[in-house]
């Protein structure tokens, strides 16, 4: 990968981030409705208090000045003050981000491993019964909304059989050591992670299956067979290695989807992460938190695409520049 290419990509990344940040500002400052109007909804609102609030949120400045203040705060890592929690937004987000990374990270990892594995199984026996089973099941799971899958799991595992906790991050009031705490969190993690995994692994397996089926008919696959390589080697070394390129692209797109899914799943399972925070902030009109959460999600998606772009360069010798 050439430095020039990297420089070009970094420049694009910087521009994209700037545009995203600015759009986020517009979304929350230009569109009708601001926190002061919101607080004033109750009717009798002391004009003096109102003026004070306007000043507090910097709403007395012209929009363009507000914009630069916003940029300056952002550079200093100041994301504002939550109305609801009465804490800096960074503090509020701090805990939530970790929990979401835990949930989404686990689900992503399992999704990629299981999805690719199912794709390989289906593709290497294309048009067989196991292929049909995997494909139809995947289509079914894929077409179900995350919250619906989550509710079914809650019903089966929580309400019906009581084998797994269905809500929150830890069991309230449980006193154990570090190890016990980890096990408790892991048990709480299973159902929300499983929900996210089911939907996304289904999509992933379909993508890998179809990519692999396309790759299998390439001339070099016939060469690999003619060389007398084992079936296993043919699939994992030759087919999958060539199929990784579209799969990497799919992974980048998938991060956007899984973050969207996380909002639903965290809400359904009361998992105290960004998704639940966003849901609560929408309900409680906690604009600063929402603003920051949107921004973080957007940055996560942009960053993943950036990484997948670079990965593509590394993986495909044809686009690699000396």
């Amino acid at each position, binding site marked *: 990968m050439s430095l020039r290419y990297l420089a070009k990509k970094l420049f694009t990344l910087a521009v994209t981030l700037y545009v995203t940040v600015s759009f986020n500002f517009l979304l929350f400052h230009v569109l009708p409705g601001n926190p002061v109007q919101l607080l004033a909804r109750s009717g009798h609102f002391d004009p003096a208090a109102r003026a004070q609030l306007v000043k507090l949120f910097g709403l007395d400045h012209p929009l363009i000045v507000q914009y630069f203040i916003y940029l300056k705060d952002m550079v200093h890592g100041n994301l504002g003050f939550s109305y609801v929690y009465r804490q800096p937004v960074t503090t509020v987000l701090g805990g939530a981000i970790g929990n979401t990374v835990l949930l989404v990270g686990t689900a992503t990892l399992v999704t990629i491993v299981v999805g690719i594995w199912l794709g390989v199984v289906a593709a290497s026996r294309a048009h067989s019964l196991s292929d049909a089973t995997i494909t139809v099941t995947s289509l079914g799971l894929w077409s179900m909304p995350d919250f619906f899958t989550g509710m079914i799991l809650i019903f089966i595992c929580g309400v019906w059989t009581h084998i797994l906790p269905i809500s929150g991050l830890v069991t309230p009031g449980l006193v154990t050591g570090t190890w016990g705490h980890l096990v408790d969190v892991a048990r709480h993690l299973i159902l929300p992670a499983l929900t996210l995994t089911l939907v996304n692994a289904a999509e992933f397996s379909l993508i890998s299956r179809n990519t692999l089926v396309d790759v299998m008919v*390439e*001339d*070099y696959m*016939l*060469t*690999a*067979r*003619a*060389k*007398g*390589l*084992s*079936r296993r*080697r043919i699939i994992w070394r*030759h087919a999958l*290695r*060539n199929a990784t390129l579209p799969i990497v692209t799919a992974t980048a797109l998938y991060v956007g989807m899984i973050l969207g899914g996380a909002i639903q799943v965290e809400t359904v399972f009361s998992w105290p992460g960004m998704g639940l925070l966003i849901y609560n902030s929408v309900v409680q009109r906690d604009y600063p938190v929402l603003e920051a959460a949107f921004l973080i999600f957007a940055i996560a998606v942009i960053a993943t695409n950036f990484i997948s772009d670079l990965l593509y360069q590394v*993986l*495909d*010798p*044809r686009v690699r520049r000396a």
Partner: protein
Amino acid sequence: MSLLDIEDVSVDYRIGSGSLRAVDHVSLRVEQGEALGIVGESGCGKTSLGLAVPMLLPANASISSGSISLGGRELVGMSERELNQLRWTEVAFVFQGAMNALNPVQRVDRQILEAITAHDSHADREVAGARVLELLELVGIAAARAKSYPHEFSGGMRQRAMIAMALACRPSLLIADEPTTALDVISQAQILALLDSLRRSEGLSLMMISHDLSAIKRVCDRIVVMYAGVVVESGTTEEVLGRRGRPAAAQHPYTKALIAAHPDLGGARSLAQGLSGHPPDLSVPITGCRFADRCDSAMEICREQAPASLSVSPGHVAACHLARRLVP
């Protein structure tokens, strides 16, 4: 005993609800050290026959009759495991349309090395690595280029790398399916010269599939002419195509038409002459001679009865009602 003995082989493809017979009861032999050429126009079953040898036919194909023996071992019905041991060590393949025959994301030397190590798991990596460079050198690719990716090679180089890879496990038989089709004239000549010299230096037997008669004439000792899935004529290249002042003694009107379409074989310069129309549809059974519809000399019997193979001279066989024993 012949190295390769194809006996009465038929290849069927399942298509939709019916099936198509691409190779119809074909028999042929390749002797040790011999170069056999297979010609015929597009769709006559050359590739299907070639792929049948190492059992590499696509999933919708089946070998519905006959036997294929290589070095005395029967390949039809052999387990995949046993076949994998034979592939590349006994029979290597250079594929039609080699532009994409090398894995695009693997370096060329790695791909050749893989062929060696796959069949000899105890191979010393250094020895094997040296052999890779030696092979590349043999086909005229400098060691400095060994670590290239296929897309960094020209078409001719790719084909030569493919040939180097085919030689990696010292196979006794090399099947080359239109090894020069996608190349320019200069590269074509280079590849043909390479195959010809390798045949002698490596003691290789060659089954070369082509629709280019002059390529066959350049490299092969014997020629088999296929039409619509059957062998219509076979004999020494010298006799069938003519060589060193001797005129072509082809007996089958199809072979004659092919020769006529090749200006550098002394024929008239018109492809249309004697070869209008298309080969018949192979998904319906055919009575009579398959070539009758396109044959200028077709008689009544040609449409009623498929001609038997007649030995017109020692080693020269033609399947035509008009064929007559040649007076020596």
